[in-house]
């Protein structure tokens, strides 16, 4: 069994998201082929459910070392050697981190050891937690350097003036569903109320848009389960046991019915499942998006072991152009299990975070009186 996180019910710690992605410097630049048009699906990918729908069912692992955005705008496709170098670096990190620690070591220094993210700081995450896979993604036989394929530079477009204005006007330290904890949320006043903490810390949604839509790979707990029936598609997101219940060929819920993970409707188009999601709450805020966010997801079976996932994000109130990403959902290994992600039930952290801040304030007030 590969190293993966067993979510214990007492585990309420939440993590760095986007910030955790490997930042890889690539050598040996070659002219960049862009994302190629879809090749016809292999015969194995033609499996159908009893209802005649493309059969997408199963347990999938979406962990990957490929980041959402890539550092080199000209290079979507990695050479085999480049991909192997990334994988070797991660394998070496895992090997180092798996060595027994010194039982006589001291506690981390007050304020952390200077390293970034939750894995450093006060030692919140050791290697037990981390499971972002051990390979880069492969799409149409190409090793990929980013999930984003459009814009062709592999970067999420900058948010527009309207979105910046909205962000400024929002509460200080606005929580977002993919806030890299410890980064955007440590601003002054960010510990005043539970509502100011990131959604992951509050156990409302997984961090890093793991639930989506669009669903993105994160530091750990990257399993998804898909069940298809005559009238529905159900996508279970491991973190936080969010079941996306998606009716086929039905209209959206009324516009004022907002949901944390949006209101999704689905249809089949040939070999593809197409899911369209709107009606997000104004608290979901995927990468600063507004409640006008619309996400279109397409799933199709590339081969026996692989489901392809392609998403397009649109929100004119946030980005001047739509943007698109794609990555495979890989069939889980036969001994992989999806465990219960009981986050809220063991969330001692949120209370402790707020209590800790009140304690610091009390200490500061006492010091001032002296």
């Amino acid at each position: 069994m590969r190293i993966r996180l067993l979510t214990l019910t007492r585990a309420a710690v939440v993590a760095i998201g986007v910030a955790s992605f490997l930042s890889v410097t690539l050598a040996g630049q070659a002219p960049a082929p862009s994302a190629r048009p879809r090749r016809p699906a292999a015969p194995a990918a033609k499996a159908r459910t009893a209802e005649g729908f493309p059969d997408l069912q199963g347990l999938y692992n979406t962990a990957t070392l490929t980041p959402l955005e890539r550092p080199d705008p000209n290079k979507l496709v990695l050479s085999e050697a480049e991909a192997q170098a990334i994988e070797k670096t991660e394998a070496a990190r895992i090997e180092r981190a798996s060595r027994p620690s010194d039982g006589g070591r001291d506690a981390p220094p007050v304020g952390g050891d200077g390293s970034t993210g939750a894995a450093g700081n006060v030692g919140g995450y050791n290697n037990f937690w981390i499971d972002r896979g051990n390979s880069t993604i492969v799409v149409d036989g190409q090793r990929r350097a980013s999930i984003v394929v459009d814009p062709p530079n592999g970067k999420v477009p900058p948010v527009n003036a309207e979105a910046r204005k909205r962000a400024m006007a929002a509460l200080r330290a606005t929580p977002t569903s993919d806030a890299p904890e410890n980064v955007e949320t440590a601003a002054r006043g960010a510990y005043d109320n539970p509502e100011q903490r990131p959604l992951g810390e509050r156990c409302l949604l997984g961090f890093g848009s793991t639930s989506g839509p669009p669903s993105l790979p994160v530091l750990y707990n990257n399993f998804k389960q898909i069940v298809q029936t005559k009238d529905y598609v159900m996508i279970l997101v491991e973190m936080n046991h969010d079941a996306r219940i998606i009716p086929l060929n039905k209209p959206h819920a009324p516009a004022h019915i907002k949901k944390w993970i949006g209101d999704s409707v689905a249809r089949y188009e040939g070999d593809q499942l197409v899911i369209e999601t709107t009606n997000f709450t104004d608290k979901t805020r995927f990468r600063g998006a507004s409640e006008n966010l619309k996400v279109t997801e397409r799933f199709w079976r590339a081969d026996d072991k692989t489901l392809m996932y392609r998403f397009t994000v649109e929100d004119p109130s946030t980005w001047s152009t739509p943007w698109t990403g794609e990555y495979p959902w890989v069939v889980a290994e036969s001994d992989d299990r999806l465990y219960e992600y009981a986050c809220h039930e063991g969330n001692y952290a949120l209370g402790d975070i707020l209590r800790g801040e009140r304690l610091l304030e009390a200490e500061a007030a006492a010091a001032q009186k002296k």
Partner: protein
Amino acid sequence: MIKGLSGTTIALAAAALTTTLVVNSTTAVGQGQAAYRAPRASDGHPDLNGIWQAMNTANYDVEAHVARAAMALRAGPYGPLPAAPVLAMGAIGSVPGGLGVIDGGGEIPYKPDMLAKRKENQEKWLERDPEIKCYLPGIPRANYMPFPFQIFQSSKAIFFAYEYAGAVRNIYLKDPGPAPVDSWMGQAVGRWEGESLVIDNTGFNDTTWFDRAGNFHSDKLHVVERFTRTGPDHLRYEATIEDPETFTKPWKITMPLYRRVEPNAQLMEFKCVEFVEELMYGQWRKNPLPR
């Protein structure tokens, strides 16, 4: 008395009626109404797909109980009165009566020393009921909370999604062996026995309750559920509950579940985690609201 019928005929008719009633209230199949043959799903088994909901008071108390003023009570000059924290709820906070869902109308066979713990649970209900904190409900409670749940049955999988707290459980169709870790919703292994889906549930922790009345179990809980279609829009739900640490013998609950037949029926989002933040963390705001 109906003219022309002999005493024997009446006796036979009465016996037949009794038989029908007995059959309907037990797990027997192949006779009377219980022999309803459900439409088949794509896996060839009875089709359990749909949105279902219980309509009874089992979530208040699985045992028979009369209506009372509130879940949390205190002594009043002429008998119990609503406790201060729930007083403002008035009639909305009162408890409807019910004859219970335990087979034979009985009581839960607690070991004598365990009854004291239930009493304590009732006295400290506001602090202890996991539902108050939006914790995962466990099995069997998830199936008779006042929220709908949805069964997804395909040729490859059976999956339950509950509106309350967004609880879920995947039903293993191949036994993966003993649960590797305890959980709130347990490990469910399903099999078909004729018209019934039988789910064997183990691997529970000791933190869920059966109802708001403080009925509890240990981590030795073992629940065997049977879901049987009894008509186009009805399921019979049965659960046999075993926990040698808490009960002297297994006991069983039975109830109908009703299909939510509204054309627009759907599971709504009920992320109650957000709703209990003020209760659980509000006192640690920088500027706490008055309590």
